[in-house]
Every structure is written in structure tokens, then in C-alpha cells.
């Protein structure tokens, strides 16, 4: 298993796809930098980090980059090997099929977590460094907690999209529909329907959201479009997310074990 993990991790970083993912994850950094420059050119106000960093990390990372790149990588767990037709090498090694998918998932999770957190760190640093090193270090906990949310979210989304990728021939459209159709709308509806989304549980882990909800100043809450997350505790969220991840990994492993792949078929 260890060698498989190493093999897939090195493969991921050497793959051309890695450049695309790195470019995607660099976009928020670039735009944050651009914003700082344009903001300082067009306004004279000081940047309100506590207002801006949660906006960027939640909207840009948790709602957009995390699920999108997870879809890209998750659907490629088996999809890539099938398209490149290298799956026949993997399936004819003395390695349980389930282990192959688990190793690939784990390596994708490591790569995604690292890249996202590096990107988040740079965005965070660009926003805070202007206010001085002390501000940068005092708000580091928010960055670490935000990063942890990304790591948790990556595990869940990757395993979910790996399962979707194994089930469907065209998982990307289904995944986009799920992220930007279902989750984008349902997560903000009142009532219990939002429990049927992943992002709702990630919201409850989100540090700035909790902080804001703990204050009475909801009107000043720049994330006032978010419906109340008071009714689910972080612990419950972690349990649910862990369960979703476990079920998806199990199902994806089972699928690879029982499914046969005709590599001469068009994708």
C-alpha cells in the first residue's frame, strides 16, 4: 500500500494535470493581489481583513475551488487510468482492486490539501501583511482553522466524486450540477433540507462563521446570506462528514472490485 501511495503521489505531481490544478489554485492569490493593488488605487480606506478573509476563504475556496478541484481530481481517480488505458497494468498486479482506489484517493487528498493550503496561505499573507507582521501572526489561527476545513472538505468531496466517477460515464456535468446547482441553492434554504448538502456541515466548522454567529451583530455580518448554522455542532458535522467519506470510499472500492473495464470503449 505504501508503495502504491508513493507511486500515485509522484505520478500526480509529475502529471500535466498538476500544472492545471496549480494554475487554478493560484488564481485566488493572483486576484487577491490584484484586488489589493486596485483597492489601494481607487480607495483610501484601510483593508478590513476580518471582513475580507472570511469572504475570500469561504466564497472562493470552500464554495468554489475546493469542490471544483475535488471534482476534477476525484472523477479522475479511475477515469484517468481508464482514458490513458494504463488501468490494465494496475488491475493485473497482485494488489487488491480496492487498495488501488484507496491509494489513489489518499494521494489525491494529500496533493489537493497541500495545494489548497499553500494557495490559502498566500492569499492570507497578502491580505494581512500590509497591516504588519503582528496582525499576520495574531490571525494565524483563523487561517489554520480555515485550512483544516479545506482539508476536511477535500476528503469528503474527493471520495464522493471518486464514487460518481466510477458510476457515471460523464461525471463532470453531474458533479457541476451537484456543486453549483444543488449545494449552491439548497444549502441556503431554511429547514432541514440543507442537511442533504456537504457544504452545510463545512459551514458549521468554519471559524469565522462561528465567531460571527457568536456575536449579536448579525446585521454587520458580511456573510448575512448564510442561513443560521447554530443548529448543528462542529462535532456532529465531523461525524457526519467522516461517515459520508467512509461510505463513499467503501462504495467506490466495492465498485472497482466488482466492475469490469472494457478499455477499448470510447470514453
Amino acid at each position: 500500500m505504501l508503495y502504491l501511495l508513493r507511486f500515485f503521489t509522484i505520478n500526480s505531481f509529475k502529471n500535466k494535470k498538476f500544472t492545471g490544478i496549480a494554475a487554478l489554485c493560484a488564481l485566488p492569490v493572483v486576484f487577491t493581489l490584484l484586488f489589493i493593488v486596485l483597492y489601494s488605487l481607487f480607495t483610501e480606506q484601510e483593508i478590513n481583513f476580518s471582513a475580507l478573509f472570511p469572504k475570500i476563504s469561504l466564497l472562493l475556496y470552500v464554495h468554489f475551488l475546493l469542490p471544483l478541484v475535488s471534482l476534477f481530481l476525484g472523477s479522475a481517480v479511475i477515469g484517468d487510468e481508464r482514458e490513458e488505458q494504463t488501468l490494465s497494468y494496475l488491475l493485473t498486479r497482485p494488489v487488491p482492486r480496492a487498495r488501488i482506489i484507496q491509494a489513489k484517493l489518499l494521494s489525491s487528498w494529500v496533493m489537493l490539501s497541500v495545494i489548497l493550503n499553500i494557495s490559502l496561505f498566500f492569499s492570507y499573507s497578502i491580505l494581512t501583511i500590509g497591516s504588519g507582521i503582528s496582525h499576520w501572526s495574531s490571525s494565524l489561527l483563523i487561517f489554520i482553522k480555515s485550512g483544516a476545513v479545506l482539508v476536511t472538505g477535500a476528503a469528503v468531496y474527493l471520495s464522493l466524486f471518486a464514487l460518481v466517477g466510477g458510476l457515471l460515464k460523464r461525471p463532470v456535468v453531474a458533479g457541476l450540477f451537484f456543486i453549483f446547482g444543488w449545494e449552491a441553492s439548497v444549502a441556503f434554504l431554511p429547514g432541514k433540507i440543507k442537511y442533504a448538502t456537504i457544504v452545510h456541515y463545512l459551514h458549521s466548522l468554519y471559524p469565522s462563521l462561528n465567531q460571527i454567529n457568536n456575536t449579536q451583530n448579525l446585521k454587520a455580518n458580511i456573510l448575512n446570506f448564510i442561513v443560521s448554522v447554530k443548529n448543528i455542532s462542529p462535532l456532529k458535522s465531523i461525524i457526519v462528514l467522516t461517515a459520508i467519506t467512509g461510505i463513499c470510499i467503501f462504495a467506490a472500492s466495492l465498485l472497482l472490485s466488482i466492475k469490469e473495464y472494457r478499455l477499448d470503449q470510447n470514453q
Partner: protein
Amino acid sequence: MKIESIKLSKWYGQVIGVNNLNCSVEPGITGLLGPNGAGKTTLIRLMTGQLRPSKGSVRINGEEVWNNHRLFKNIGYAPEKDAFWSHMTGEEFVYSLTRMYGFDHDQASAMTKKAIETVEMTESKDKKIAGYSKGMRQRIKIAQAISTDPDILILDEPLNGMDPIGRRSVIDLIRKMGKMEKIVVVSSHILHEIEEMTDTIILMSHGRVLAQGNIYEIRELIDTHPLKVVIRCSNVDVLTAKLMEYEDVKSVQFDREQNQLMVETVKPSEFHKRIPELALKNNISIYSLYSPDENLEAVFSYLVR
């Protein structure tokens, strides 16, 4: 050690890949022959556990192959498709796939080095596979299949795209492995390549096994097609007259100028025994004797319609 298929069938929707196939592969080299669409690759994929049988089973040493990863410890497989992780070098490719068998770094490195030397790719092992020619890619595919010295080697069209020198070295390698009492299954639709490697074939068409065994034995069994034998001798007229007395001789064409006759016989073994006797009795010198028919192409063309 044996690979056997018992009433093996595989279909894809309405299309039948293999149909109620019963065959057995013993140690030695077995050529898997057939025209395009015969079911060779389907059979190979069933043998290597990539496809699940729709009916029946395929077993290696009595164990079902499907979803039985432990069996692959002893199997080396080179697929037909030209597929690689193209960012890898040849050495990295063979090494990575060898490590997946559970060998440690030192063992895998030694095995990789040996396999690469065997396929004569030592000079190019550090180059990226993306820059390899077709023949080089074929060799590196074979290298990863033989690196662990498996007891069972399954090669799907291994000589595809190879130049004559490369072909020769791969054929020699396959012959060497066959002599080591390993099971070697080689699939091809190029008859003379298989003939150079082995006499034992499985001939397939439309998902069925048409014939299995030694080429010459199969040929003898095809009594609907009399065997042609060409004889050059000193006295064509006498030999023709003598041969026509036998019931198994269906026709004789002779050419006095060339001193040659072509005989069609339905009992080749008896015919071959008869010729020396006739020659001695009638004082005829036999200059040459051969059968243009006793080869794989003839077998193939008679059986595959």
C-alpha cells in the same frame, strides 16, 4: 500448472466475445490465433482477470481468476494497447510495476535491470517513454511482463510494430521461456510469427475454438482438405501410375519438363511411409519432397471461413 477455461462465455450486450469455450493451456508456448474479432483479446482479458465471465469460468491452477489478485503474483502480462504513463522513463516504468509485486527497492532494481537487458533496452532506459519508437515501447512492455520471472506469461500481439531484428530477439526470448517449463501464451494474427515460436496453437474464430493442439496433428485431421505433396523425381510417369493405384490419392498433376508431380492425398501419414517403398521398388530417385499445405496458413484458411 495449467490455465483452463470451462464452458467459458463472454458477451457484451448483443455481441458475443467468446462462446462456450473449452480449452486448456499447458506449460510451453501456446499460440493464440485467429482473425480480427475472433475473441483472442477477450480470452486473454478473461485469463488475466480484467473481464468477468458471463458464463463458465477460467481458472489458473484450479483457482478462478476473476477478482483474485493473489494469482497475479505469478502472471506477467503485456497488453496489446500502446499505453503508458508517458512522463516516466523506461526504467521507471518497469521498476514501478515490479515494485507493485511487493518487492523491495533493491530487489526491484535488480529485476528491472535484468529485464531491460533481456529486451536490449539498456541504452534507452533513461529516456522518456513518450520519445520511444513503437518497437521500443513494445520491448519495454515485455520487460515489465518478464521482470518478476513469472510462471505464466501472457503476451497480446507482442511483435506489433517491431522491426525484423527486434522480432527475432523477442521470438528467441519467448522460445527460451517456453523451454523453461513456463506457460507462455502469445496471441497474434500473423501466422508465420507463431509458426516460428511454436507448434501448439489454439485457433479461434467468432468466439469459438476451431482447433487446439499441434499444427501437424490438426492438419492431419482436416480430411475434407486433402494434403498436397510436391515431389521431384527421376521418373514422373512411373511414380504417377503407381500412386494412382491407391484409394487415398485423390489426384496427381505432373509436369514432365520439371520432373515434378503434385499429389493430393487424404491419408498423409500412410502416404509418406509409402513413398520410400515405391521409390526403392521402382528404382526412382527422389530429388525433393515437400508439402505446400502442411503449415499454419493452410490450417487457418481451411478452418476459418
